[in-house]
């Protein structure tokens, strides 16, 4: 057997190359620049610059794309408008994420532990803090994650998808573990996330192997052709398909594959939670979308029970459990599980409208999510000596926030209303598109369940609004909570607020883009 080296068209890969290249450079800079303060600035500037340039390159490619797109590396990667749109979305989330990573409290604290390798509570940790160490590795790690996610949305080969999956997952496991405060919780979260992530990778890999066994193909297109030709459904093929999808549903955080979500969201440093919640979900939804609509489309009937069951379970469980949460990060985590259910509703009818609906949904959801967590980073406890302490994540501590900081509380209310899908916020447009896709496919029973779940979910979103605006600060607790002013986090809040409003009121331009992107280059579902 001779090994033929494929000719690679590098040009369509430029955005990903920029991000991954900058990540590699960032790792190098870690070793070169000794002064923590300088290193932090350099890493931040490098990250933002790389992400912006990559986004610019992706936009340029979108504008100059001829025909439907380009197939790269013998069909392992496909760069079409669908993938470019997702890449831009993930880059946007990456930019917001980097801004949050770099934000510091007015006491000059970042969200990350100064020395990740130190044992929590040990002498090392104290020394590292006193000496002003900075954990700036998160910037290159985040770039690796972004690059992996971009790849994840563009890959059209089951084996290569696994590579992309690991490229974006491994950095996230580390980033979850490096919280500055409550470090043991952070470590535990990381371990849980890692174990369940490995579990889901195994699921995925086994499924991909089964697919290969059943079809002799590893590319989406190759499997798709066999699937179309197979008259009777091959059990091997179907099992493989289900396991591959289950692997992706883990990343999406849908019930019953959600159990890592609340712990990872709560334990991770909040900027990481923000980035992870928005970007991982987008990447997972994009990959799922591409696989379902290229490869498994003709299996629609056989698979729809899976989507229906998981969607309903996610919406119901996410909503019901969120109702009883007392920690704001956990509440948002369960809300994200419910949103995973809404995302799956769009798949419910197997209508090709989902191709334009899901990018819209994920953007509206992701922007509000990042905004909400950015607000969380700024509501702080006050320590006994009067300085600003850790985040005040207990719901009760948010009482009366509307009086303390109308901007933050108003922004949070807007994000919550967007989650709830109230018109004139982005969330409504997202839900409208997702539900339209499902109704177009005839799944109106699923949509009915989804709207009832939305109505129930309003209950816990509104509970926080009640706390912030309708409840007075408890007697004697006026001093216990402090609103921090870190300019970068503020900027993220304001930018996401603007985006939520713009996408809610004049979303036409973005819907146009999503409609343009609703064509897959290969195996177009039709």
């Amino acid at each position, binding site marked *: 057997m001779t090994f033929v080296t494929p000719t690679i068209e590098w040009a369509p890969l430029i955005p990903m190359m920029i991000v991954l290249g900058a990540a590699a450079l960032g790792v190098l800079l870690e070793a070169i620049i000794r002064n923590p303060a300088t290193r932090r600035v350099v890493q931040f500037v490098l990250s933002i610059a790389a992400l912006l340039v990559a986004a610019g390159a992706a936009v340029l490619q979108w504008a100059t794309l001829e025909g439907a797109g380009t197939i790269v590396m013998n069909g392992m990667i496909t760069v079409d408008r669908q993938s470019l749109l997702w890449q831009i979305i993930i880059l946007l989330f990456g930019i917001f994420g980097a801004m949050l990573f770099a934000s510091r409290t007015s006491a000059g604290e970042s969200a990350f532990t100064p020395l990740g390798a130190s044992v929590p509570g040990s002498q090392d940790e104290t020394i590292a803090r006193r000496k002003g160490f900075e954990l700036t590795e998160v910037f290159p790690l985040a770039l690796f994650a972004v690059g992996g996610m971009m790849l994840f949305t563009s890959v059209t080969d089951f084996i290569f998808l696994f590579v992309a999956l690991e490229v974006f997952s491994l950095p996230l496991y580390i980033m979850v573990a490096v919280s500055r405060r409550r470090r043991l919780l952070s470590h535990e979260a990381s371990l849980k996330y890692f174990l369940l992530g490995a579990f889901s990778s195994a699921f995925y890999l086994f499924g991909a192997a089964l697919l290969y066994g059943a079809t002799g193909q590893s590319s989406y297109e190759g499997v798709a052709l066999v699937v179309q030709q197979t008259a009777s459904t091959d059990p091997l093929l179907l099992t493989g398909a289900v396991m591959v999808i289950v692997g992706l549903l883990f990343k999406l955080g849908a019930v019953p594959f959600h159990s890592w979500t609340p712990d990872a969201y709560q334990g991770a440093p909040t900027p990481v939670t923000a980035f992870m919640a928005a970007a991982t979900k987008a990447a997972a939804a994009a990959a799922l979308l591409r696989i379902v609509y290229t490869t498994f489309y003709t299996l629609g009937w056989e698979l729809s029970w899976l989507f229906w069951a998981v969607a309903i379970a996610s919406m119901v469980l996410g909503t019901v459990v969120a109702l009883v949460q007392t920690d704001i990060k956990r509440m948002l985590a369960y809300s994200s599980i419910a949103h995973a259910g809404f995302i799956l509703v769009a798949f419910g009818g197997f209508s090709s409208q989902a191709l334009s609906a899901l990018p819209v949904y994920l953007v509206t959801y992701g922007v509000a999510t990042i905004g909400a967590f950015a607000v969380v980073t700024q509501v702080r406890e006050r320590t006994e000596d009067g300085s600003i302490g850790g985040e005040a994540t207990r719901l009760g501590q948010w009482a009366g926030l509307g009086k303390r900081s109308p901007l933050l509380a108003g922004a949070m209310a807007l994000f919550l*209303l967007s989650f*709830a*899908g*109230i*018109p*004139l916020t982005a969330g*409504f447009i997202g839900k*409208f*598109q997702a*539900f*339209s896709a499902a*109704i*177009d496919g005839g799944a*109106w029973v699923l*949509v*009915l369940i989804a*709207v*009832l779940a*939305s*109505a129930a979910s*309003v*209950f816990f979103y*509104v509970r926080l609004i*009640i706390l912030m*605006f*309708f*409840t007075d600060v408890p007697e004697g607790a006026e001093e216990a909570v402090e609103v921090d002013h870190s300019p970068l986090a503020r900027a993220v809040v304001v930018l996401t607020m603007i985006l939520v409003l713009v996408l809610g009121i*004049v*979303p*036409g331009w973005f*819907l*146009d883009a999503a*409609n343009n992107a609703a064509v897959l280059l290969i195996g177009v579902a039709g």
Partner: protein
Amino acid sequence: MFPFLTVLIALPAVGAAVLWALPASARGRVREIAIGFTAVELILAAVMFLQFDRDAAGTFQFAETHSWIPQIGTSWALGVNGIGLSMVILAVILTPLAILAGWREDRDVKKRTNYLALILLSQAFMVGIFVARDVFLFYVMFEAMLIPLYFLIGMFGGLQRRYAAVKFLIFSLVGGLIMLVGVIALYFQGPGGPQGFLTDNLTGIDFSTTTERLIFLAFFLAFAIKAPMFPVHTWLPDVAETARVGTTALLVAVLDKIGTFGMLTLCLVLFPDAARWAAPVIIVFAVISVLYGALLAIGQENMLRLVSFTSISHFGIMVLGIFAFQQTSIEGAALYMFNHGLSTGALFFVVGFLIARRGSANISDFGGLQKVVPVLAGTFLIIGMSALALPGLSPFISEIMVLVGAWGAVPVAVAFATVGVVLAAVYILWMYQRVFTGPTAKGLKKTRELTLRERLVAWPLIGLMLLLGFFPAIAINYLREPAQDIVSIVSVEEAGS
């Protein structure tokens, strides 16, 4: 042509933004600024009213159609026919009065600013709902309006305000979201395209029977919750009891009309066959609302709850008129929507005046006020009489039109509903008797007489009710043609099917 409708929507919204943007030092005059905005709004609406072509009251006038989100088929399409016009007029009349009625309610300037800005914001949405000619736009306004209202109930008002606000929001959202399913499904039944949500494009669609009925029900449920009809009315008394009187007056007098307005202009027009199919059951629920509301009103101890139950009863009569599908009954229902707004709005305002004097809404805390404050008593009596439909005051003529018009179609229902009208005399007069007659209660000897400001709130409404009571033709001329159109849509297809 001057874009009256867009300006009417935008002006209060701008007003709200201005109030919030004011620096703290300039907030001493927020009330004057707010009332200024509503006054300009009122003048604009009056000019529009004068320019409205009465002979073509059935067509949508001042129409504007701009592309909004063509990708999902929705446009910024506005227009009013006679019914929409009457509702807009009602909204612009009652908003400044609500502000005036609550003039002294807040000492805290920040709180006052928030309250007034939210009132203005709700006014923008109210007007928007009544002039929308696009189902999506209607839906957006319908849902977005909940937010200012939610804050109005939850931030200002009595002890139970948080509970009431959540109850209101959840009830409205469940209805609204189910309606959303209907809205999307309707789009797929219609012609689609960049103007696929335009009401005109959705009229006369050839549905399959089941589809039409399901979509009709999705819409109707949302409107029944809003209008409050038995058995989905339970949110209203709780809200009325705890929210500020100004909020409640606007809510019951104007916003709840969206329910009946939607039934009239969307349910009947878009789904005529399904409306006929559902009419018998809906009429039964309407009659139950009439009687149930009236009976519960008699039993109430709290005046605000009492008035809200009377409204449930009156909304039952409107729904009865709408679903009797008769020319006179529909005209009467549309007229009643306007008159009920005047009458109930006024009733809430005077109850508010009483509460401001006593610090309590309980009837048993009052007594014998007639001797102390005769003008207040007289005002209350006249407004009360309008609520029980005394001839000479405008609600009378509309109630008669509904009952007489519907008699030909559903005599048994009308017979029962008439009992409700009789019960109205009991709850109003008994309330008057307990509050104003008998020995003067302790601590009420020095009760203040109706002030000039309060007279400015109550008397214009009484004047309007007298005017329309003696010359109902002024209003009916605007409502006859739209009613004819609706009746013809509902009955033409009857011959066909």
